[in-house]
């Protein structure tokens, strides 16, 4: 997307490589985003990133880097937590969604699977899906049938209260519920959180399938960097509210800094934890 000059400059300034070689413009473009909580706490300081259509993009970073805040900014949830976008823009295709409300953003095609699953505990599995299809009432039945195809386990539990599902099933329900809005951009905030390794693999395989079969573009926020980079096309690494590194998933997985900080592979054997800490404190990107 090269429709506006500020877009281009802001992106370059933040050091993000542009990746629109021949293809259509990015599905999601965030430029120089600044988010403040409670009018004083600056959480995002000039974040810029792009998600190209059809890709799986991983957004990585340590605790408190601002990954979840980025998700909330995109989906319009900041006002519910006394947060506010004070600068920058978010575009979904050509639509400016910087200050749109959550319902408008869902209708524009961006759905979020929240961190910690957030299923409607007292509603049945079926009712959860009905609620997920709120913006598309005409397609509810077809949508539910499709979700059950991807998640057969959910169909067996369709009349059970979602609160009683296992963690893995709840995560599947949360993803299925988001799919009910038939999003072009599916955002997942820590889908592996609190799940057994085998389940994590299953969930990631499903994310890949959704991306392949439905052509859904995926923005994946993860602490589990290795697994995320495994299925991603592109990756961004966040620190202290901005992007510090980005590139193809393969490049990132090979980057020595990423290896050390996010994949837990030190180059020269195991150092004492204390050294690592000192080293980390000294060495920061930027």
């Amino acid at each position, binding site marked *: 997307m090269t429709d506006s000059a500020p877009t281009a400059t802001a992106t370059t300034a933040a050091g993000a490589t542009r990746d629109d070689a021949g293809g259509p413009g990015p599905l999601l473009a965030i430029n120089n985003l600044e988010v403040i909580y409670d009018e004083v706490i600056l959480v995002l300081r000039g974040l810029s990133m792009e998600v190209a259509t059809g890709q799986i993009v991983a957004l990585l970073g340590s605790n408190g880097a601002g990954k979840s805040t980025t998700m909330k900014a995109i*989906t*319009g*949830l900041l006002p*519910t937590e006394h947060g506010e976008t004070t600068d920058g823009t978010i575009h979904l295709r050509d639509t400016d969604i910087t200050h749109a*409300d*959550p*319902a408008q*953003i*869902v*209708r524009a095609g961006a*759905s*979020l699977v*929240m961190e910690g699953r*957030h*299923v*409607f*505990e*007292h*509603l049945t599995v079926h*009712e*959860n899906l*009905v*609620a*997920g299809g*709120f*913006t598309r*009432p005409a397609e*509810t039945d077809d949508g539910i049938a499709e979700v059950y195809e991807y998640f057969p386990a959910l169909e067996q539990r369709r009349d059970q*209260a979602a*609160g*009683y599902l*296992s*963690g893995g099933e709840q995560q599947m329900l949360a993803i299925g*519920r*988001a799919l*009910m*809005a038939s999003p072009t951009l599916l955002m997942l905030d820590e889908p592996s959180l609190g799940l057994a390794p085998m389940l994590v693999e299953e969930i990631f395989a499903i994310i890949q399938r959704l991306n392949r079969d439905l052509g859904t573009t995926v923005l994946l926020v993860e602490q589990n960097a290795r697994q995320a980079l495994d299925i991603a096309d592109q990756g961004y690494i966040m620190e202290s509210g901005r992007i510090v590194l980005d590139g193809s998933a393969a490049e990132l997985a090979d980057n020595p800094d990423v290896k050390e900080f996010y994949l837990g592979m030190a180059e020269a054997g195991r150092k004492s934890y204390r050294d690592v800490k000192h080293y980390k404190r000294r060495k920061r990107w930027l």
Partner: protein
Amino acid sequence: MVSQFVQLSVIGLANGAIFALAALGFALIYKSTGVINFAQGDFLSVGAYALYAGVATFGLHWSLGMLLAIAVAVVLALLVERLLLRPMIGESSIAVIMVTIGLSSMLQAVLLMLFGNAPRRMPRILPGGSIDLLGATIPVNRLVAIAIAAVVLGLFTVFFQRSRWGVAMRAVADDQPAALTMGISVPRVFAMAWALAGVSAVVGGLLVAELVGVSGTVAEFGLIVFPVVILGGLDSIKGTMVGGAVIGLLVQYTAGYVGGGLQQVIPFVVLVLILLVRPYGLFGEVRIERV
């Protein structure tokens, strides 16, 4: 003996129907918006007086009178939600309760201004007369009142189980941030909860006007809402039905078999007992805990 029991039962259930409709509005608002509405009894008064104004003052047919009353109650409920309670979102629940108590006094005062203190005679809407049931003489309008409440509560139940907006309202009650990410408009759900509470207040008002009469004492039903919803569970429609019926019957049986004014106290004895034994009521949502 039997005839007295039947009579007490029917009258108890008819009163219970009013309790249930008043409690329904309360539960709707509490469940969706988390507001404890102390003005619920006054909404019942507004419904009753609006109906009275339509039918007696303007001489409308009762069906038009109902529509007018529903329109008045819904508009009032929406205004209250938009102007008084939406700005209070995020404030402490005590502050919100104070607002609804203030609202209650204001509504009482306005009704007093408009209609004065004297009880009003409401033209009959429900069929009069009485029938013989197991040796007891039962006024027909009581039976109709019970039927009306059953139908209205049934419709509300179906609405919440089956309709898209009903499910959306329950979703908002369950997890507001998640509902937002589904594109459900929370403010609209709040408005809808208040509007529906207004509708149930008008139906309740109709029954009050018919069975008790239109006067300033209608608002006293607001107080008995608490034993009903505490017994049934604060956020359950099924609970309001059962709670209404149980309290209605209990009051009548106490009046008939024990007497001595104990019937006035008994609902609140139940309230205290339930709070001690089962604070979430018979059908209230128990927090789901997975292990």
